[in-house]
């Protein structure tokens, strides 16, 4: 045989061995799942983003709120904020929908996830406006007013029972009464901001845990002690937080200056006051004077803030409830504290998570969609999806908006904050108002503008937005 041919054959043989070694191992054949009775068979909802969604176990009917009496037969499209097959939002919803389908064999629920960012909300809005593809949607409260203004959401009043009214926290139900005094969504949960403490960093720095009644001065002192350099040269910072036009995670840390510091006061822009300027200045000093924040504080990405906390690069961050199940699942050693008080003022900012039903002329379908929304905001859904390996806190990723729901740890650490939680204004102007405030807010933190001047400068336009001009 020609020498070159021989070499080629040997190379081909070696390559085939290498390739077979590199190939993914063949998965062992899974044992056949026990056959469920045909009437109760409930498969996992179709994964809309990736085929590798974990299969929800078959459920058996239980009745109660799970059972829709609408008589509807067909598909309900459920859009879930933050749902990606396999993530912390997906498993609880998959399990809950499996149960709902078991109780309603004629109803198939298709889940579509959308990300909590501009692209996601654009996708949601476009689908909702086109009148196709959405029957039920989970969304944050600040997005609801614009949809209600465009008559895209069905009011829930005709479906609210006395039991619902007695169970749902009155302030959450009141908050979704947007047009003609009608309520436009089922309150799911309340989402306050808290200060997350990385206990490993505290231990490493030899810092004692402060009291949960801490003041701003104590918070700053703690942040200073947590700002240090490790032996390997790695810098640890005492505090960080995500700042973006779409989020208000950090606002409570300066809005606590005085009860008068609110974005809208008596129908007018409220951040152009002396008290607001003092609060903003004090907050910016974390970066400019005390230097307890990372150098890119103010323009950091959310993933960098959260990743830095998990990787023990930040001692404390401010974030909403949804981060705590992730930390629990990742076995991070953490605690949740209320925001520190200033002059005795205590506040945490937050929003309400909602489940709404898209407006439709098909009343049977609307009834079925309302039944699904009621179930997904009830205590029954928490019974069906209790805390487990795949759902760290059960179905609820934030303290529930119903008294009957049992709040699982670590979310129970947020419960004391609900008494003084300030909910972002439910006005169609809100997204534009935050866009107007954001660059000035950043420049204050970067030390480029004076807080009073910055807020006074945008006040006329803010007032126009609030007035709806």
């Amino acid at each position, binding site marked *: 045989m020609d020498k070159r041919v021989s070499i080629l054959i040997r190379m081909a043989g070696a390559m085939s061995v290498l390739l077979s070694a590199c190939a993914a191992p063949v998965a062992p054949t899974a044992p056949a799942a026990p056959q469920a009775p045909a009437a109760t068979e409930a498969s996992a909802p179709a994964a809309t983003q990736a085929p590798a969604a974990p299969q929800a176990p078959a459920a058996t009917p239980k009745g109660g709120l799970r059972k829709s009496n609408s008589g509807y037969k067909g598909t309900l499209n459920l859009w879930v904020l933050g749902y990606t097959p396999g993530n912390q939002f997906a498993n609880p919803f998959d399990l809950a929908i499996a149960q709902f389908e078991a109780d309603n064999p004629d109803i198939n629920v298709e889940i579509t996830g959308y990300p909590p960012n501009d692209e996601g909300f654009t996708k949601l809005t476009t689908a909702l406006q086109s009148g196709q593809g959405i029957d039920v949607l989970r969304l944050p409260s600040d997005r609801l007013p614009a949809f209600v203004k465009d008559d895209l959401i069905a009011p829930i009043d005709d479906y609210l029972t006395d039991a619902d009214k007695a169970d749902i926290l009155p302030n959450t139900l009141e908050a979704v009464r947007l047009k003609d005094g009608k309520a436009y969504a089922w309150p799911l949960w309340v989402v306050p901001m808290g200060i997350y403490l990385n206990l490993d960093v505290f231990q490493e720095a030899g810092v004692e845990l402060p009291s949960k009644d801490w003041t701003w001065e104590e918070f700053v002192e703690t942040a200073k002690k947590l700002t240090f350099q490790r032996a390997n040269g790695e*810098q640890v910072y005492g505090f960080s937080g995500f700042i973006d036009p779409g989020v208000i995670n950090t606002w409570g840390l300066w809005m606590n200056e005085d009860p008068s510091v609110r974005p809208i006061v008596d129908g007018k822009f409220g951040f152009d006051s002396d008290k607001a300027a003092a609060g903003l200045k004090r907050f910016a000093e974390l970066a400019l004077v005390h230097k307890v924040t*990372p150098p890119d504080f103010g*323009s950091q990405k959310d993933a960098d803030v959260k990743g830095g906390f998990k990787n023990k690069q930040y001692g404390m961050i401010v974030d909403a409830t949804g981060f705590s199940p992730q930390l629990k699942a990742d076995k991070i050693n953490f605690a949740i504290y209320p925001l520190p008080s200033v002059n005795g003022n205590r506040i945490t900012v937050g929003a309400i998570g909602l489940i709404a039903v898209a407006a439709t002329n098909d009343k049977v379908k609307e009834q079925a969609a309302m039944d699904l929304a009621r179930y997904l905001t009830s205590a029954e859904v928490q019974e069906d999806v209790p805390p487990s390996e795949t759902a760290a806190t059960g179905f609820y990723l934030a303290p529930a908006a119903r008294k009957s729901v049992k709040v699982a740890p670590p979310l129970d650490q947020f419960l004391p904050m609900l008494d003084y939680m300030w909910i972002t204004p439910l006005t169609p102007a809100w*997204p534009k108002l935050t866009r107007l405030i954001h660059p000035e807010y950043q*420049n204050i933190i970067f030390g480029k503008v004076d807080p009073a001047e910055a807020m006074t400068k945008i006040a006329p336009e803010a007032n126009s937005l609030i007035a709806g001009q």
Partner: protein
Amino acid sequence: MRRFVQKHGWSYTFILPSLLTFTVFVLAPVVWAFIISFQEYSLVRGGTWVTPIYKNYVTAFTQFGGVFVSAIRNTLIYTLFTVTANILIGLILASLIQPLSNWLRTFFRAAYYLPAVTSALIIGLTWAYIFNAQWGFANYLLRLVGLPPVRWLSDPDIALGSVTLSAVLTVPATAVVLFSAAMGSIPREYYEAAELDGAGPIQRWWHITVPLIKSTTLYLVVIYTIASFEVFERIYVMVPSGVGNSTQTIVTQIYNNGFKDLNFGVASAQAFVLFVMIAAVAALQFRALRSDVEY
């Protein structure tokens, strides 16, 4: 005319698919967007004419503290630096690889073309990592030489410069390849004659190469200008939350109005301001760089 149609008419069937695609997917949306720029448009209710008819154009410049003016200024600065740098870098790199052997020239052309086939998002993410103030590679290098860290993407005074630098330091792939091809097509006799007359390498480059690739230069200047005016992905990936208003560009404003606020009228008005700017700059460039030289 009839004879022309009889003789050549059938050949137009070949461009018909492209023409139809262009009309349906480019021309019609552009015309529609122009109409929308004078309307308040809702996906639910459709469009209604605004009064006064130019209201969206005024709003485009005045809303959100006049950020659109900052965006135009930022875009012009970004364009000026990136186009100039990309043309110069492309020209220098192509000139350096031109004298090499065929094999090496092909290798370098392929290597320099890599950024053109790499996702702009990946390039943006890579630069975002390099410029990360805490753990980025740029500050790591500064620390090695004892310099303090720089807030590349979080200082309003330098954030736009950092984004521009990232665009300048990414090899201008198209420029290198096109300049290289243009240089390869220049007849060798010109260089031989100049050499006989005693011209050195720099003189030959300046008096023969540069003038004879002027048409390629014009093409590259125009396409790089258009691309720079439309910068979006790089900004969106590197500074998604913005840095004050210092990193806002025309297209980020169009995106914000169109897709964040669903304010299609104002977004369309801003898009037409961009169109007029690009058309005006391209016309100036054609006038300044047109070449009468043929060979």
